[in-house]
């Protein structure tokens, strides 16, 4: 097979991956940006989204599109609630001390993982896509659902961007992020804002989880990679910069796919990881750092 279709495919795949990354990364970025804490359990929220989608698919009879639509709404809500609860019960009590938060969220992720293992089981579970149509290119077939993922992600991110940029809520969130105490002095209910932000970040991850599951599967360990990747995306993009996060997601989504045209896959992964690391080394603020704050 010649190189052109190969590149096309690598690009398509990269974009799908980038879309999912964009969602999880923005969730993480929001939490990190506002609360200055690293949420290690973020990947678990993503996983719960996927498991939620599977649960909906098993419980709700009828066309898969129905259960999918339900999952897209219900799973993030439940995950968000859970996250808000965790925030209230734990993070608020340790005062968002960055280090203690890492330990606590590792604890939370252990708990979520193990509970999922005990109830949902260790197997990977498939969910039917809401619609199924295989688009045939001259050289290969491609699932139309993947285009849907890209579409939804783009729509969600655009909405978020508008919200952060132009809404009062966005302004207040950014204010709390710089100085808690002064924010309180201006009537901003910091505690509630934090819970909301934490929940919202988790919901973004859960939405991503619901979206991927018809494409890959739900599995109790699936949160690990997205956590690492979105963490990388957030920082490479430039903390708190939505355009940066998008750019980084696309860069990272595409790079190893395209590089693997020329190298063996593992070598391509090595090269792309190194590439991204060096971007950071020589541009420590990230691609869109500083100037492009949310």
């Amino acid at each position: 097979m010649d190189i052109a279709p190969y590149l096309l495919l690598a690009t398509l795949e990269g974009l799908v991956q980038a879309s999912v990354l964009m969602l999880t990364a923005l969730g993480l970025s929001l939490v990190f940006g506002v609360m200055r804490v690293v949420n290690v359990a973020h990947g678990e929220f993503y996983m719960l989204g996927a498991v939620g989608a599977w649960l909906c698919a098993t419980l709700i009879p009828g066309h898969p599109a129905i259960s999918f639509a339900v999952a897209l709404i219900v799973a993030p809500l439940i995950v968000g609630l859970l996250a808000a609860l965790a925030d209230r019960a734990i993070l608020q009590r340790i005062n968002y001390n960055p280090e203690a938060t890492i330990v606590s969220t590792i604890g939370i992720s252990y708990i979520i993982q193990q509970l999922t293992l005990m109830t949902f089981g260790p197997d990977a579970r498939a969910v039917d896509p809401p619609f199924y149509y295989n688009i045939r290119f001259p050289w290969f077939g491609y699932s139309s659902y993947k285009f849907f993922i890209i579409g939804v992600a783009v729509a969600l991110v655009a909405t978020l961007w508008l919200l952060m940029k132009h809404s009062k809520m966005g302004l207040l969130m950014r204010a709390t992020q710089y100085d808690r105490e002064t924010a309180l002095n201006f009537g901003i209910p910091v505690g509630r804002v934090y819970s909301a932000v934490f929940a919202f970040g988790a919901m973004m991850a859960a939405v991503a989880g619901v979206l991927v599951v018809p494409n890959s599967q739900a599995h109790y360990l699936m949160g690990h990679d997205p956590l690492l990747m979105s963490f990388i995306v957030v920082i490479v993009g430039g903390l708190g910069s939505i355009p940066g996060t998008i750019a980084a997601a696309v860069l990272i989504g595409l790079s190893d796919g395209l590089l693997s045209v020329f190298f063996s896959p593992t070598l391509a992964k090595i090269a792309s990881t190194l590439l991204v690391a060096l971007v950071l080394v020589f541009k420590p603020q990230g691609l869109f750092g500083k100037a492009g704050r949310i």
Partner: protein
Amino acid sequence: MSVMTVEGFDAFYGRSQALRGFSVELRGGEVLCLLGRNGAGKTTALKAIMGTIRRTAGRIVLDGRDLSALPAYEIPRAGIAHVPQGRRLFAELTVAENLEIGLSTRKSSRRALDYALGLFPVLTERMNQRSGTLSGGEQTMLTMARAMCIEPAVILLDEPTEGLMPSAIAGIREAVIRLRDNGVAVLLVEQRVDAVLPVADRVAFMDHGEIKARFTIDEVRNDLSLLHRYVGVGA
């Protein structure tokens, strides 16, 4: 009739007591000045009023409404504004955004903003600059202006003249007088007696977390040795 009554505040940092039975009463259109050495607990007292540090005892009433049990973020909404020591701006936000946050606290109108900017016209030139890069003096003005956007009934000023050039100090003094004349109650923390005397109606001396003595401004003017006794400066 007093606007704000604070009674018997106690507060602790760890095991050390930072406030002991701190009480003040403020009438509308009056400036009460809180004086005291470094570490006397002046800043702590203001924070306790704002609810940003936990108090173990005490009551606060504003316009007849008991605020004692309210969470911290309700205090400014009730109408008490705070200009903190050391200019705590939202450093990454622009001047305009900082002011907007002030306006949003009680959903004040643009008039409040115009009024504040009228007092500090420099700020109009800097609206889109990141507030963290303002000069020290500009930052102080911004914190004052931001607090005025709340349209408060009571304003707490923690050493607002700190780091200001003499002509700007005059500006702040003027701002305080304008506030007072508009019926706002001002609780002013100051170190520099000369900055205080012209605007204050009453003076309270603080030490070790307690108010040790209260005087009217005339009493102080008549007997400057009081200053020496309580804050250690020669008249």
